[in-house]
């Protein structure tokens, strides 16, 4: 039988034979295409609980699989493999291995909030995407994504001074991720920018890189932010480690 909707089946699960002869009968061609049968047994029953412990993942249990998120998704329109509904499904079923096939694209969610806007169950799928990418990194399935580097650099500056300075973020981010600052399009852009800027402003921006913008009396806020993060991190660790030992 030819397989209808073949595109829905992962290529590695299809068995095709260009030349196949059984009992002297030539059955080559699409007649002999089979779908590899398989039984899933390696469930991670705690997967949903683990993902829910990461920032943004708390409401994953509410999903009823309507698919509105994927339907509205900005990144899905560019790459059909980017499928929030499906990933949420896999997480809730505990199908970790299946999820890992898409591990390298999950971080690409651009936080456009289209999914959270349309979700009828208040799952906040945008947050779930962030939680998923954190979970992937925490479990060692993926290296830190560029986006995570950016978030950490940003957070660090806010934590230290209460404010950010964009130039510093850009420089440190390129540094952390080992990218050169001398990319032709960046140079051209900076040239365009400087051309129009009044000297006074340039001076002020230059000074901002020396004297970082700061919120005054920030130390108590800093301490209290750190305390909260520590608390949440240790709760998360307990869940991940508890699941490992059980």
């Amino acid at each position: 039988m030819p397989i209808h909707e073949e595109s829905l089946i992962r290529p590695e699960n299809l068995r095709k034979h260009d030349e196949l002869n059984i009992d002297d009968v030539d059955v080559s061609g699409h007649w002999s295409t089979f779908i590899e049968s398989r039984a899933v047994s390696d469930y991670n029953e705690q997967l949903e609980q683990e993902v829910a412990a990461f920032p943004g993942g708390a409401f994953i249990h509410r999903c009823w699989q309507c698919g509105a998120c994927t339907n509205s998704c900005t990144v899905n329109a560019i790459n059909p493999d980017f499928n929030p509904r499906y990933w949420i499904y896999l997480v809730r079923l505990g199908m970790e291995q299946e999820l890992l096939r898409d591990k390298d694209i999950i971080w690409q969610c651009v936080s456009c909030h289209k999914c959270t806007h349309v979700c009828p169950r208040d799952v906040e799928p945008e947050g779930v995407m962030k939680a998923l990418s954190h979970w992937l990194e925490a479990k060692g399935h993926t290296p830190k994504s560029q986006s995570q580097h950016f978030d950490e650099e940003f957070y660090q500056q806010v934590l230290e001074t209460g404010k950010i300075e964009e130039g510093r973020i850009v420089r440190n981010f390129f540094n952390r991720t080992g990218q050169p600052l001398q990319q032709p399009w960046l140079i051209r852009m900076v040239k365009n920018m400087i051309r129009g800027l009044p000297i006074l402003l340039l001076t002020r921006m230059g000074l901002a890189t020396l004297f970082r913008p700061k919120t005054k009396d920030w130390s108590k806020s800093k301490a209290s932010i750190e305390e909260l993060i520590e608390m949440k991190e240790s709760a998360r660790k307990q869940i991940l480690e508890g699941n490992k030992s059980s």
Partner: protein
Amino acid sequence: MSDSTHLRDDLDTVAYYPGCALEGSGHAYNRSTKRLARKLGLKLVEIDNWNCCGAMEVKNIDPDIQNYLSVRNMSIAKHKMGLDVVMAPCNGCYHNLKKAEHDVTHREDTRETLKKMAEKTGQPEYKSGDVETIHALDWIKHAIGEKNITGKVKKSLAGLKIANYYGCMYTRPRHIFPEKDQGEGSESTSKPHFMDDLLRAAGAEIVDFPLKTACCGGAHTLSDCDTSTQLVLNILQAAEACGADVIATECPTCHSGLEMHQVRAQETLNIKTQPVMLYFTQLLGLAFGISPRQLGIHENISQSMGLLRQKGLV
């Protein structure tokens, strides 16, 4: 708690929350917003010793830290400055303050966490409805209104074809904007129109632009450049196909995203697009006769002076 679907009436004096971007890449937006306020006799009082709202990033470290950052600013406006309207011109700031308001109103756990943090840092606790957060578009729309704008126009924007780009954070997700989608006179989350209304009142021709709320990839503008360039190109090319000369913006992140990736598309993909980017505050300012320099038009990366000269606006 005040009626969350109704905008407060007195907008002559509001607390101003510029945010970090307006002190950096969005300085032209900051400058033109302040100029506009002065011209229109509206008072902006900058929030005393404000802090960053966490932008698109801190929530990924922890959503309640982001809420803390927002309510600290709102609490200062209310308790230290005695103001109950906070105006934020940046979509990211605006979104975050609205999100914090929503969580404080609807989530017990957030309320508890923030209460404890307020105690530890010695700030007054922020309570639901203490302030109303509005966007710069709400501010001009409600404080001045279309009729008065038309009356104040010195140089009509007639002849300028504008596509209005609102981005993601101004309308999504709808549940954090209870005042939107409330019928006549309110903003729409599916087809926002406040910027259209204001610029049309200043004489501009507004083109029917289908990608008003498309995403420019701002969250990954540097961490996933190729995706962002693709998304920005969609927006630029759609605006061009609609016949727009100008894409009007109301967010520093969207604005610089469009500018940056327009350059990048040309450099890396060799795709050139025509529309120039201007903040809506710059466009209104021009209509009211404020000089381009005072509106920071030279500070934009996107070069619009040629077009403005050609249209007789400078």
